[in-house]
């Protein structure tokens, strides 16, 4: 799953076709920036909707035990439709679908967030080194990135599953590795740009150490694009986890995961089609909520969209 930089933009301030714009003479004070950004974000109704859905799914994951046991079999209530006792029905072993969806949310959110954090933890330092020191370090890291990119996500994941065995941990590792190139590239690109900025040059002239310059001046300014990249990576990882689990290379039954639920539902497509609907809706909503929030963040933080 490759992530291409996507300059998607929503409503930007209307402006004439080029520079001769209306005079925006007095820039708003610096300390009001965060409030202004929040206002911009909340003006986008779709992004707010995404945020709400995201919070709902997160609370579903946190409060999963409230929805009952995901593994209690009831062979007297197999493949049932929605009812008061089972709002989303039951599966082939009589297990409550809602409870399994809730526990599946835990797996999905874990996989999505952990894989993204893993990719950031490795990718951001590599990108910083490549962009800041240039030279041979950049060369080595860039070739390493090319090498990673040469392995399509599923080929890599299948290979890793074969070597390490199928498990949630290994799914996270596979997803993290495939998300690595994007983070290296985004960070490297930002640092290359920031290096030329006056305040960085000024810090260098003042004799600040590399570590200080990177942590104080460079990294804080690269946060916006990294945040946007993270909101793109999480939904990809969520879908990636479901794909691997669906194929049987990820989370193993009986642990409930949206992917394994779909895999099991495949067998009963004609008898209980709804069984194949719920987990898919859950995956789509989870991914959609992150994508909506990501689009909102991009529009809010992208300085180009502000002009």
């Amino acid at each position, binding site marked *: 799953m490759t992530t291409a930089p996507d300059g998607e933009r929503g409503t930007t301030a209307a402006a*004439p076709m080029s*520079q001769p714009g*209306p*005079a925006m*003479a007095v820039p708003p004070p610096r300390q009001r920036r965060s409030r202004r950004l929040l206002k911009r974000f909340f003006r986008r109704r779709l992004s707010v909707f995404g945020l709400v859905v995201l919070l709902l799914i997160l609370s579903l994951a946190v409060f999963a035990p409230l929805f009952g046991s995901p593994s209690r079999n009831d062979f007297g209530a197999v493949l049932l439709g929605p009812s008061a006792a089972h709002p989303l029905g039951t599966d082939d072993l009589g297990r409550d679908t809602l409870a399994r969806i809730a526990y599946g949310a835990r797996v999905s959110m874990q996989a999505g967030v952990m894989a993204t954090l893993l990719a950031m933890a490795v990718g951001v330092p590599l990108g910083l080194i490549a962009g800041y020191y240039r030279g041979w370090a950049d060369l080595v890291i860039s070739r390493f990135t090319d090498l990673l990119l040469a392995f399509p996500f599923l080929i890599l994941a299948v290979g890793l599953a074969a070597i390490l065995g199928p498990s949630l941990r290994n799914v996270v590792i596979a997803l993290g590795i495939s998300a690595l190139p994007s983070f290296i590239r985004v960070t490297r690109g930002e640092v290359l740009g920031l290096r030329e900025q006056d305040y960085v040059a000024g810090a260098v002239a003042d004799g600040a150490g590399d570590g200080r310059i990177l942590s104080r001046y460079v990294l804080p300014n690269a946060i916006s694009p990294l945040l946007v990249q993270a909101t793109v990576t999480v939904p990809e990882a969520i879908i990636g986890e479901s794909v691997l689990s669906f194929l049987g290379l990820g989370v193993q039954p009986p642990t409930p995961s949206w992917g394994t639920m779909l895999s099991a539902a495949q067998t009963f497509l004609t008898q209980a089609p709804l069984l194949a609907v719920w987990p898919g809706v859950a995956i789509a909503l989870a991914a959609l909520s992150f994508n909506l929030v990501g689009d909102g963040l991009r529009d809010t933080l992208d300085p180009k969209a502000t002009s």
Partner: protein
Amino acid sequence: MTTPVTVRAPQPSGDYPLLSVQDLRVRFATEDGPVFAVNGVSFDLRAGEIIALVGESGCGKSVTAMAVPGLLAPTATVTGRVLLAGRDLLELTPKELRAVRGKEISFVFQEPMTSLNPAFTVGKQIREVLQRHEGLSKKAAQARAVELLQLVRIPAPERRVDEYPHQLSGGMRQRVMIAIAVACGPKVLVADEPTTALDVTIQAGVLDILRDLRDELGTAIVLITHDLGVVADLADRVVVMYAGRPVEQAEVHELFAHPQHPYTNGLLGAVPHREQGVELVAGRRLAEIPGLVPALRSDPDECVFAPRCSRRTDVCTSRRPPLEPVRPGHPAACFHPGEAS
């Protein structure tokens, strides 16, 4: 009694303006409400004349220029009249307007580095306008493109015509832009800061070409600039703009010799040898005036320069100063006009 027949460039009768902009107003709809970019600009341009629109950035001069051939984004609301040889361009349908653009009125933009399409050769970009308006064949248009490159003094035009923009220097690209603009012999050329992005050494060459076009082809030019050196060098008449309003208008020698509006005085304040009028250092920028250009969130009934003005009195904020002659042929919108002492 016979009057001698005078031979002159094809143009309307002497006092009939070629381009007449009347009470032009431009408003932009933005996320944060309307912006009043241009508020009632009027000027006339005769054939072969060069008029300069001057002011700090954000004063509305570029928006005025772009409004003339209808090049503003759809978020702009333009009112008033823009009469080109008696025809109101604001009344034309998009299709009629396209027939005028590039043919009767053409544009040279500020950014030579980005105003040419990187994907096509210089020749193709010149041919395009010739094929569109003159109906030339590709071959004829190519031959004409070489001539035009020669006209704007590009060396080795036969070779350059097949090159891509990235192979040309900034100065050469701006010449190509001018070649495109004059390809169909327009009546009016609008040049928006044509030399701002160029090195000082190259600026003079581009200005010479503009002057020659006026002298040889009789092209009238609307020159947008904030460079007083360029104004003195090239313009016949000047409109000084501030916060979307015209604040003073005069013939160039008159303006430099007897500036009336305090804003104009401020602009000229740091310029040496004001008495000698046009003898200015090329490349000189407008002098810094304390204060900021106001955000154009409204079009208030008062003098918009008052907050920065040293001559301010109560009357300045009570009503809008009318643009009325304070010297012959020299209007200024100020309740306290006069040269700075």
